[in-house]
């Protein structure tokens, strides 16, 4: 075991390796910008192999934890003021080991994929540097031993997300999206910071267990009102709300799809957005004892799951559709945490990480193929109305996408089935209402995912249809026109903005048929298909190895005990009902998009208001635009005007009056210096006299 011991004491290398990679390439980019940008293969191989090493170490640690090694912690004094000390370090326990494996494997595969996807991009090296920086931040986050360190890395992953969403910085939508993402996350962090300060004020600690213990104790003995504790907990929950895109702070995630697709897979599907769920897991000792907080979490999650699914039904942009699907699935996880299904929530986090990363990478492969036909224009390349029949041209992408679709729809034995079913089963025991929301959402999920699969891969290829293109172009112009705020582009600039952007070299002529992506892209897809199919088997009710490994802090259970608890009859009822609703959703999708027995357009026309409600994302963005964006601009203008007119004016006036009086008095005196001295002397005398009298 000695080698394992040293593995633990060197575990800090896991986040540090990618940081070293990012730092070296980053320094190169700053000092020898052009030369470094040309070192494509060396840079990417360097960065990918560093992450590969981190992945190997993570496997080792996971293996050792799985075999029952004690949790390991290392702390050092990071900051101090007087006798006050703040500690940082790293903790490796079951949850951290699991997250390490998820993050490193997905990141590794995404990095391999990136080589193909970004092959023609001039920012190739910079992209790898950002990816590596993100991997560092995310790995640091999962190893954090206390809430403060979580907050540190929490913000860092947010910054990486900002940099990567805005990667194509000369695209206006990307510029807006990255700022929106950062600010929305800051709103969540505002709550997280306040909650953290509040809990620290009450308990004097940032350690998860100690915070939970002391807070519970205080509420019990009555030294802290329960309402205040609940307020702190809900404030902390605002952090996950923003990071995991829960209503009402979800608005940034769909827009974040402006970033390159590998990012959408890694950050905005598999890892960073799941950090919210991870934090709820870490904060379990605190949340668990506060029923109000748990209920809030559960309902926010359920509502988000439902909302995301209903919006995903009508989206035409393949990445937007997947983004709302991610939001909906994150809602499931959050709901699971809220109803106390700790292990189920994290199980879904794991399965979702794999199949959703695969789905996003698949969509990237589709976009890559489409770009060969319609050009590098997101309006065309990502719109499913121009796709269809791609299975013929891109077999690997199609099969892996289908596996992902089956997994997310909850069809046994694919991964998503086991985790979703466990969530629904546990939810039913706590609240049938929440279960009903989750159950209906499962049906909608199956429907929209198969809608997506069918319209992308089945039927006839529509990419060469100019009529559709023209109508998409007009739609795009209208949408941009509608969202034009003050200071935005004027209409004549739009064609330029929607036209091919120069980040890709665009000299190859457009083909009439899409082609399958290169092997660096299909290989990660195939690799991710394996866990998407099989990983669910570690958490079946017959032998729940997952729950035995990941159980709430303070609880220890074994596989045998868990198997005993399971009521197989109940399992068959629950699983049967959730498979049934998924099949209903799939059947509907088949009827609408394969056999065309049901005319989707006609239904949409019949329920126009509902359809528009979904298409326009429940109008949340429009409301926020008016209330927050324009509202804050107005307040800022008022503040500035007030500052220039009122405050400055008043202070100047006071000064002016003083000067005038001084000027008047000056003529009474013979010299300026004497006058000055006199005033000073008088004032001093006055002060001394005054103080002497009292």
């Amino acid at each position, binding site marked *: 075991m000695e080698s394992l011991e040293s593995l633990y004491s060197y575990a800090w290398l896991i986040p540090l390796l990618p940081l070293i990679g990012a730092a070296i390439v980053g320094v190169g*980019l*700053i000092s020898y*910008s052009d030369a470094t940008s040309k070192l494509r293969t060396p840079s990417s191989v360097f960065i990918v192999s560093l992450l590969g090493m981190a992945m190997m170490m993570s496997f080792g640690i996971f293996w050792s934890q799985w075999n029952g090694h004690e949790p390991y912690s290392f*702390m050092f004094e*990071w*900051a*101090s*003021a*007087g*006798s*006050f000390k703040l500690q940082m370090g790293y903790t490796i326990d079951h949850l951290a080991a699991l997250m390490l494996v998820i993050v490193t494997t997905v990141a590794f595969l995404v990095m391999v994929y990136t080589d193909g996807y970004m092959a023609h991009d001039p920012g190739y090296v910079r992209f790898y540097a950002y990816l590596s920086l993100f991997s560092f931040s995310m790995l640091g986050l999962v190893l954090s031993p*206390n809430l403060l360190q979580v907050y540190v*890395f929490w*913000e*860092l992953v947010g910054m990486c997300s900002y940099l990567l969403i805005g990667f194509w*910085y*000369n*695209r*206006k939508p990307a*510029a*807006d999206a*990255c*700022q929106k993402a*950062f*600010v929305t996350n*800051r709103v969540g962090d*505002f709550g997280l*910071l*306040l909650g953290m*300060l509040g809990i*620290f*004020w*009450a308990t*004097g*600690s*940032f*350690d998860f267990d100690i915070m939970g213990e002391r807070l519970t104790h*205080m509420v019990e003995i009555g*030294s802290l009102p329960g309402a*205040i504790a609940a307020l702190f907990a809900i404030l902390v929950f605002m952090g996950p709300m923003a990071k995991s895109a829960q209503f009402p702070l979800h608005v940034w995630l769909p827009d974040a799809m402006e970033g390159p697709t590998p990012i959408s897979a890694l950050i905005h599907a598999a890892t960073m957005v799941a950090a919210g769920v991870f934090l709820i897991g870490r904060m379990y000792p605190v949340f668990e004892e506060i029923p109000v907080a748990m209920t809030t979490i559960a309902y926010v999650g359920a509502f988000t799951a439902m909302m995301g699914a209903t919006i995903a039904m009508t989206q035409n942009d393949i990445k937007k559709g997947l983004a709302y699907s991610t939001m909906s699935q994150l809602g499931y996880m959050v709901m699971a945490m809220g109803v106390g299904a700790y292990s189920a929530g994290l199980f879904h986090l794991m399965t979702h990480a794999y199949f959703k990363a695969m789905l996003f990478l698949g969509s990237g492969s589709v976009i890559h193929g489409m770009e060969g036909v319609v050009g590098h224009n997101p309006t065309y390349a990502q719109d499913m109305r121009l796709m269809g029949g791609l299975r013929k041209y891109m077999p690997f992408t199609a099969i892996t996408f289908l596996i992902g679709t089956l997994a997310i729809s909850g069809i046994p034995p694919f991964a998503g089935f086991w985790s979703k079913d466990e969530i629904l089963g546990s939810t039913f025991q706590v609240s049938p209402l929440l279960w009903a929301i989750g159950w209906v959402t499962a049906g909608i999920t199956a429907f929209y995912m198969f809608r997506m699969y069918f319209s992308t891969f089945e039927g006839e290829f529509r990419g060469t249809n100019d009529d559709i293109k023209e109508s998409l172009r007009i739609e795009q112009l209208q949408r941009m026109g509608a969202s034009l705020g003050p*200071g935005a582009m004027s209409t004549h600039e739009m064609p330029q903005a929607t036209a091919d952007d120069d980040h890709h070299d665009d000299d190859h002529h457009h083909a009439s048929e899409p082609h399958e992506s290169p092997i660096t892209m299909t290989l990660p897809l195939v690799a991710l298909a394996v866990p998407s199919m099989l990983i669910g088997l570690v958490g079946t009710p017959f032998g729940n190895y997952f729950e035995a490994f990941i159980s709430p802090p303070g609880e220890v259970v074994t596989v045998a005990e868990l198997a005993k608890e399971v009521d197989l009859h109940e399992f068959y009822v629950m699983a049967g009902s959730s498979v049934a609703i998924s099949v209903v959703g799939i059947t509907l999708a088949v009827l609408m998009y394969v056999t065309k027995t049901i005319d989707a357009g006609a239904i949409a026309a019949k329920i126009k208001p509902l359809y528009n409600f979904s298409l326009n994302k429940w109008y949340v963005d429009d409301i926020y635009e008016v209330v927050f964006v324009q509202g*804050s601009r107005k*307040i*800022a203008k*008022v*503040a*500035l*005007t007030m*500052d220039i007119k009122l405050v*400055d004016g*008043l*202070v*100047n006036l006071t000064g002016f009056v003083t000067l005038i009086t001084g000027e008047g008095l000056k003529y009474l005196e013979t010299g300026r210096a004497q006058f000055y001295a006199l005033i*000073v002397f008088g*004032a*001093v005398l006055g*002060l*001394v006299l005054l*103080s002497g009298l*009292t």
Partner: protein
Amino acid sequence: MTVEHFPWLTALVIFPLLAAIPIPLLPDSEGKSIRWYTLGACLAELSLILYTFANYYDLNQTGLQLVDNFAWVPQIGLNWSLAADGLSMPLVILSGLVTTLAVVASWNVTMKPRLYFSMLLLMFSAQLGVFLAQDMLMFFIMWELELVPVYLLISIWGGEKRLYAATKFILYTAIGSIFILVAALAMAFYGDNLTLNFSELAAKEYSLPMQLITYTGFLIAFGVKLPIFPFHTWLPDAHSEAPAPVSMILAGVLLKMAGYGLIRMNIEMLPDAHVYFAPVLAILGVINIVYASLAAFGQDNLKRRMAYSSVAHMGFVLIGLAAFNTLGLSGALLQMISHGLIAAVLFFLSGVAYERTHTLAMDKMGGMGKAMPVAFGMFTAGSMASLALPGMSGFVAELTVFLGFSTSDAYSTFFKAFIVILAAIGVILSPVYLLSMLRRIFFGTPGELEIPNNTSWDIKPREAFVAISLLVPIIGIGLYPKLATQTYDVKSTELANRVQNIRLAQDADHGPFYAQVLTAPELLASRLSITSIR
């Protein structure tokens, strides 16, 4: 007085001034040899500063060190009295670093280079004089001495409305400094012995009304300089007109003189009054944060926006000072150091942008990222530091202030919650104005401005050197805050304890000054002795 050791601090203060004397004699009107000469002088001075503190300064002592004391003008009791302690030492180093880099940033100054660089050197001496003076009158003289170069630098090398801005600057600060003089003399004449020495002044037992009045005087003077709402309106004007290197020093060092003054005079010498004024400071602090952040967001002028951002960041210093504990004071000091570096790098980079675009109007800019990618990256790093991203110094400083204020036992829970929540709104507002600034300058497609289609606008090695020299300590402190905090930790601990004891004594006399609506739970008190926070 006998000279027991080499007068290091005197040498530090005098050297730049002496170095300025031969400048008129240098054989060069283009400014080439002058700028090299000045840079050499500044580097020598910076090395001298570092050498002195590395070899002769003991980090574990709370008291004054390296004391130089000579009679200067004995007729009026003026002593040349210098000494360093934890409050002044880090600021002296900051001043040395920022001024040296400002000289590098001034490389392209071709108009009247002799005067320009002499003024920078004069300003250097005056800054160090302010931070090191241990005599009230000397402090005041140095304080006034520093105004002259700033006035000239803005009014000669400034932008279009430079005269207005320079005049406004000199009027505001000069009127402010009258209050220093009045309050200082009042303190000097108080009681039996006439003295101007800081330590002796601090040792006097002032009556409470006297303390309150002099405190108010200092607060107004330093409030103009820091600046504190509503005396801040000179700053946006001064920054938008000043050349970038002057803005670097103005935001990086000169604003810190006010923060230093607040700690040195108001807190250290007038602690009884501070107990009464602290809540006022906290309230002014949040006004600074929220109000200036909003005003910054409303601004379309790049440097004005950053000027308001400085006002907002100084709000955290005020809140930290009001906390009555080591954490708060430590946070305030760290925020001063951190903001000195961050503001310097941001103002420098805005100067880099201005040299290319010849405009500060952000609505004319846009799409510059392609033309200056490395500058874009550095601007992003600076903005991230300014919005308190972890891993950079601003985060540690603001977090320490937040922790300090929220664990302070001087206020009711309600008041603390009120202040902390409003200050935290600044956490939301800072990315709003900083990231939208980045977006409007670098993102998207070019606006009105003609932007070259290659990277010829990108940052030059000299410019990159300045930015990196500032970003490295920003990140260094962010990763390992002790780099900065150890320079003042013993001093801030000692001072915070002293003020806290005075507050407790006052509470014991008059009962708690602030009603405790909801006291911190009992457990906390017992834990404070442990304070090992995991």
